[in-house]
């Protein structure tokens, strides 16, 4: 069962600010959701390899050579703030 401390801890891990009201709503909803999800524990999975990619992955080789990539101006075009070719952030310590 997920409690308030768990939720707070997870919000910190996810770097996500959550208001006290949101937190109350999420707590209620997540309890119901996780309760429902718990049914997977019924399935016997001893020794079963977890499946990550559903179709077979082929080996993907390429030459290790210099190729064109995004120009600095383009890469910086969406920056909230920038100085020259750098992303600018406010002082945080």
């Amino acid at each position, binding site marked *: 069962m997920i409690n308030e401390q768990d939720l707070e801890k997870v919000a*910190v891990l996810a770097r996500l*600010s959550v208001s006290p009201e949101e937190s109350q709503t*999420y707590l209620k909803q997540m309890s119901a959701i996780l309760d429902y*999800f718990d049914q997977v524990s019924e399935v016997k*999975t001893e020794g079963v390899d*977890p499946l990550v990619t559903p*179709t077979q992955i*082929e080996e993907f080789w390429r030459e290790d050579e210099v190729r064109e990539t995004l120009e600095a101006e383009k890469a910086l075009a969406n920056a*909230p703030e920038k100085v020259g070719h750098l992303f600018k*952030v406010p002082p945080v310590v």
Partner: protein
Amino acid sequence: MSIVHQSLFELKELINKGEMTAVEVTETFLNRAQQLNPKVNAFISFNEKALEEAQRVDQRRQQGEDLGPLAGVPLAIKDLLCTEGLKTTAASKMLHNFIPPYSATVVERLQTAGAVVLGKANLDEFAMGSSNENSFFGPCKNPWSLEHVPGGSSGGSAAAVAASMAPASIGTDTGGSIRQPANFCGIVGVKPTYGRVSRYGIVAFASSLDQAGPMTKTVKDSALMLEVISGQDPHDSTTSSRRVPRWSEALSENLKGLKVGLPKEYFSDQISEDTRKAVENCIEIVKAQGAEVTEVSLPLVKYGIPIYYLIATSEASSNLARYDGVRFGHRSNFQEIPAKDLAEFYSRSRGEGFGSEVKRRIILGTYCLSSGYYDAYYKKASQVRRLLTEQFKKAFEACDVLLSPVTTHPAFRLGERVADPLQMYLNDIYTTATNLAGLPGMSVPAGFSQDGLPIGVQLSAAHFDEQTMFNVAYAIEQALNLTKRWPDVQQ
């Protein structure tokens, strides 16, 4: 008849024969889409350069150049796919002003084939939702009844085609996000085999499940569009090097010798009477076309929703970590209230930029991956995923195609399920397993409810066997002849 209700193939013919120019076709759809959009809200933005792009196609034709298979046809693109120079928002405040410096491979391939980008279609924020109600730009409506949802997350892509605002569109499907809205809006929607279509340049939600695919008026249109967007891409190492067949040229409604499986777990008593009748009618059609129908069992699909949501939210929590307010996307106003540390810098920007469903899923996913819970949730779900995939493989030894409902009911009303996320998740009960197993799947129109809402039927096939799936869909489409019925959105 106005050209707006014509199929992609019909439009392509008109342009090819010189009966209409690409500019005329694009202008017709642009005008209609802009006129209807205040009602339907299928588009987040329109491409200001659409007519220029169409003009270039016309010029190339005049110069006798060999044009691609989609030359001059305007398309709606889900606003989850990057379009160079054209705003791509993922329907989120986080990316409300993001202008991509490059295009998704899917978009590039469509443009190389001559298609014109008409505009960017509405969706649930970051493709998280089943009703298109989670959009920062407001909900999209179902063209068949504006009080009903179009489905989600590719709601705008489905509604745009159903309302003939675009002849065809691109959606993405992580747990049903193409098939479910196609089903709710009475159009064809295809989720390809995992690995058929490049994910490069598509805003990532759950990378082991995401696939982009076509949403169209006819099966043949979908087959053609999928031919254009499929194939290996050096930018996405999960794409397959397999040859891409010409599905659209090999369509056949003769189903002799084919075995169609009905997964008994998908025919529960939760299904509405209208849906049951429509699906049963399709079973009769495939039998009449010579297919043998057999019952199959997939006992583990009953865990489809929990496995899917455990895996999808885990992957999402990781994929969405990139939105940090540093390099692009929303940044909180720190001039007014400075952040006391780096954690607050990230947390505040993310807390303001993401909507409530996205936050809920990030929290769920982070919880499932956190130490102490990883084994019981993420790892367990991935193990059951393997067992489920093996059950599908076995089922495809006994049959060639699976046929089932897409959802238990036709489209629900706006607002009906927003307060209860679990109820909303259960919407995807028949669609998520297809993604978990990486199979191709589609929804094809099967009829209408007594209230006049569309109902689709779901088909899926073994890995990379899209052709068999398309043939069954084609047989159903030809027998039902529903493609000439469209909603009157003007009313």
